[in-house]
């Protein structure tokens, strides 16, 4: 099982928080709740958190499982370099994003969830974890040895141990057929 990577859970939690924030925001705006401006903010914040958290990080050890179709998100998130790589940044970012959600009821749950995600991310950051993109493995094909060294003998070739060893020593190198051959009669 190995060492626990808390960021994996933080990621699930943050994604869920993003969705909850988004849902709360949609309810708040469409119901024209008091202070629906906060709900409008929650829609934007929720969508942003979802986009940021959708691409899962590579695991330090073992196989990483991608979310379906996360590749293009991975590329976008990777483009921000250390900002998205560092989990301290994420922890503070989520902590900051979640604050305005506390001003109206519809977004309170999303706010608290995101706060929890931020705490877990902070824990992960303290333990030295960081985000690493899952990129498709590029199979670097090594050129086959056989193509670099073309065969020295023309076919048909004898087994390796009776092959000629030294070109200079023609006498020893001469190929001696071990089987007796007779012409068909």
């Amino acid at each position, binding site marked *: *099982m*190995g060492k*626990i*990577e*808390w960021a*994996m*859970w933080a990621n*699930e*939690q943050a*994604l*869920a928080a993003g969705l*909850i924030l988004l*849902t*709360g925001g949609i*309810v*708040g705006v469409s*119901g024209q*709740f*008091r*202070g629906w401006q906060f709900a409008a903010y929650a829609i934007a914040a929720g969508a942003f958190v979802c986009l940021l958290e959708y691409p*899962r990080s590579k*695991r330090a050890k*073992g196989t990483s*499982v991608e979310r379906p179709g996360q590749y293009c998100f991975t590329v976008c998130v990777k483009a921000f370099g250390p900002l998205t790589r560092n989990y301290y940044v994420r922890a503070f970012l989520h902590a900051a994003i979640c604050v305005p959600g*506390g*001003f*109206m*009821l*519809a977004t*309170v*749950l999303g706010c*608290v*969830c995101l706060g*929890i995600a931020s705490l877990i991310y902070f824990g992960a950051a303290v333990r030295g974890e960081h985000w690493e993109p899952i990129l498709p493995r590029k199979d670097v094909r090594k050129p086959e040895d056989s193509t670099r060294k073309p065969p020295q003998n023309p076919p048909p070739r004898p087994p390796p141990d009776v092959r000629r060893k030294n070109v200079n020593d023609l006498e020893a190198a001469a190929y001696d057929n071990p089987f007796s051959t007779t012409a068909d009669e």
Partner: protein
Amino acid sequence: MGNWIINNGFTSFMLVVWMGINIFLFVWFYLFYDLGDQFFYTRHLLGSALAWARAPAAVLNFNCLLILLPVCRNLLSLIRGNFVCCSRTMRKQMDKNLSFHKLVAYMIALMTAVHMIAHLLNVEWYNNSRQGVYDELSTALSNLADTDNTTYLNPIRTTDLDPQQIPTYFVFTTIAGLTGVIITLALILIITSSMEVIRRSYFEVFWYTHHLFIIFFAGLVFHGAGRIVRSQTTTDPPHNATFCKDRIQDWGRIPQCPVPQFAGGFPQTWMWVIGPMILYICERLLRLIRYMQHVTYRKIVMRPSKVLELQLVKSGFKMEVGQYVFLNCPSISQLEWHPFTMTSAPEEDFFSVHIRSAGDWTDKLIDIMKNLPEGAQGPKMGVDGPFGTASEDVFDYEVGMLVGAGIGVTPFASILKSIWYKCIVNIFSSVCLVQIYFYWLCRETYAFEWFVDLLQGLEREMEERGLGDFLTYKLFLTGWDQNFISLFSLFCLISSQDTDVITGLKQKTQYGRPMWDKEFEQVRKENPTSVVGTFLCGPAALATVLEKKCAKYSDMDPRKTKFYFNKENF
């Protein structure tokens, strides 16, 4: 289609029943709150959001009742053991307990979302009514309890705060609101930490977070105690809402329209969940008792490739083939229980487990055992079990097709051993199983030397007793590469022995994955009239393949070959 019914009919039937009850509850309670006269005034304030909040609540009650049942492993084991008379199909349902647990959990998550959104609207609209935003009737209804001799309808009594903050204040100061927020949070944490990726890779996170269910159920029981959903009570003389709703000024002045009185609904959730909660507490108590019972070590053997074999003795312990136990070693962790399949046969006077080094817990255990002085007893070990899985039914079929993948051979070790014992004591007649096909797929055999040992012994025994054709087993090596195979095929040619070069067994190892069509065809040809039980312990992808093949090769004709699919759970 017919084949599909044979294999999945009962499961689907159960799911249809479950879904049917859910839909019935939803519709029933929706209509109850949407049409009931006693909710006329409540509906005037809340609209259809009232029914949309109450209908999911009923479905939630039902599913919270169900969610604890599939995880009571001792209870399931009891049902399994005591109802042997039940058909195989009935008992097979017990193996899908965790899938059902997940399904119920998804339903709870969905219904929680609907319930919550509806209540967000309810609170907002109650607050609006209280602020006098809506029509005269809404304001009058909301103001009810402000004067003497009236009961309130609108649970929001505060007006002296910033109107935008009243909903939040209301939710965090009422029983229903506060417990609702807490249990929803607990539910969200439980769900996010039980995603496949967390559960498989960081089991501890999943395991400990799942215990938030205690908070969840505690909150759930008290959730309805605030009696916030209020309905009109019958007054004398009765207050007819349809007549009086336009005569607010006359309320309490004319005899037809007394001031309407309201009361909260009786909390029901606790009645739904109390039974399963008690069952679950019994389950945990039983686990505790099992944990306290004394277990002695008969033998501790270090096998090659970091495999530890523990032979344990516990009084009153009775097992069946292919069952598993949960082990708890308090010197490693007080709380962690880990499942291990037993590799001994019921005929033996001990039970054994083979533990492969696979993570922190197993590594620590192996370390402790390695450092034990000669002849000493091992550390205290708690044993919970045994628990039944599909493979104990193997003797119920005429023909067994056992498929083990990788470490998944362990339950079959027990089965094969048991057969071996039955051979020795010649009580073969009592076993209705007549033919066994055993397929072992693995990447490399060196981690399973102990199993090869067992197979070799079994093979010898069979040979001596002239039962060679009773067991057909095939080994499939899937993790080979080109160098390996050329090397070994060369050896095969040279040594020309009749045993396999890799395993030393009579059966030749085959390379690559098995062609299941060929195997099923063969089994069907050799057993044209039998009922075949297919047992898998391995990955889900393989299960899907085998399930399809089972359906494909089963015959609707009751006299011909039929395949039943069974799967072990991990």
